[in-house]
């Protein structure tokens, strides 16, 4: 029983912080449609003082003020992308949790897959080369075939022919 309680507490402890948004009741807009849009925008905006949380998840005061500003802009009639643009104009692409693909972010987006592909190519060529090397205990079928002498090959072909007929 003790173990069960412990596991339960652990799961709660790990899961709860993710369940709770930092939003305060007084911040919520009365119009649910506008509030839903505000949440959607808030999820895409980085809390600029906590580096890797959205403003919706962060308890930082600046994040709270940014949430309010998002709601102000939405109530003033801005579209979601206009609100995001408003923030980007002031804080740069950095404020977006999902940075756009452009010249200054090419390394960010292309870098990791490119390194992965290079690594994969290296592994493939490594094993190809190893399989291609003659001799050793772990040589495969292909390398053996490559080392057949002309005489052996003639015999092999004859045997295969016999089999097929």
């Amino acid at each position, binding site marked *: 029983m003790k173990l069960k309680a412990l596991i339960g507490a652990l799961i709660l402890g790990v899961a709860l912080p993710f369940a709770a948004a930092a939003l305060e009741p007084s911040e919520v807009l009365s119009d649910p449609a506008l509030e839903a849009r505000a949440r959607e925008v808030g999820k895409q905006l980085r809390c*600029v*003082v906590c580096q890797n949380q959205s403003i919706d998840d962060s308890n930082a*005061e*600046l994040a709270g*003020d*940014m949430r*309010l*500003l998002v709601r102000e802009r939405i109530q003033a009639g801005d579209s979601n992308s206009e609100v995001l643009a408003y*923030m*980007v*104009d*002031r*804080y*740069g692409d*950095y404020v977006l949790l999902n940075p756009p693909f452009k010249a200054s972010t090419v390394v960010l987006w292309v870098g990791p897959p490119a390194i992965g592909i290079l690594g994969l190519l290296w592994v493939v060529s490594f094993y190809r080369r190893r399989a291609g090397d003659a001799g050793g205990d772990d040589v495969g079928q292909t390398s053996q075939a490559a080392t057949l002498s002309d005489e052996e090959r003639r015999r092999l072909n004859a045997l295969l022919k016999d089999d097929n007929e």
Partner: protein
Amino acid sequence: MGMKRFLYVIPLLVLLAVGGFSIAQLNRVGSGQAVNVLPSVLIDKAVPEFDLAAIQGRERGWGTKDLLGQVTLVNIFGSWCVACQVEHPFLVRIKEQGLVPIYGIDWREKDLQAGPRWLAKFGDPYTLVGDDPKSHAAIAFGVTGAPESFVVDKQGVIRYKQIGPINAQVWEQTLWPLISELQQQ
């Protein structure tokens, strides 16, 4: 074979390059050369629109239009901000010497008295100073923390962003040369 040997050295070379770059950057920070972790996108852009109410005891606040026609230093501070206290005597000296008008943004005061009290205690270097309890001006300037200061030219265009306290070194090496040059334009 020579080519193959060379391939094995590549990871080491990459590591050395990354390490060397990091050390060079650290040295730049250590020697006091400005390294903006978050470079401002507002450099060479007009100051965004905003309007601030006066802090208590002042007749008026200020807004974007007040900056036009003169070179200004916009300073974001708060009575809660320890680094601002470090910077403050320097701003007071700039004011005393009449080098450049300083426009203050009193950021995120929970107590409306706190800012005015703080200025009464440490001196008031601001030509105009406004109250920004909900970060409207702070977000307009893309501020992430206090103190931050902006050099704004006569056309109301942001020319430089100083993150962190202004001190003698920053002033003499960066801010004053830029400000005096802009003043002559």
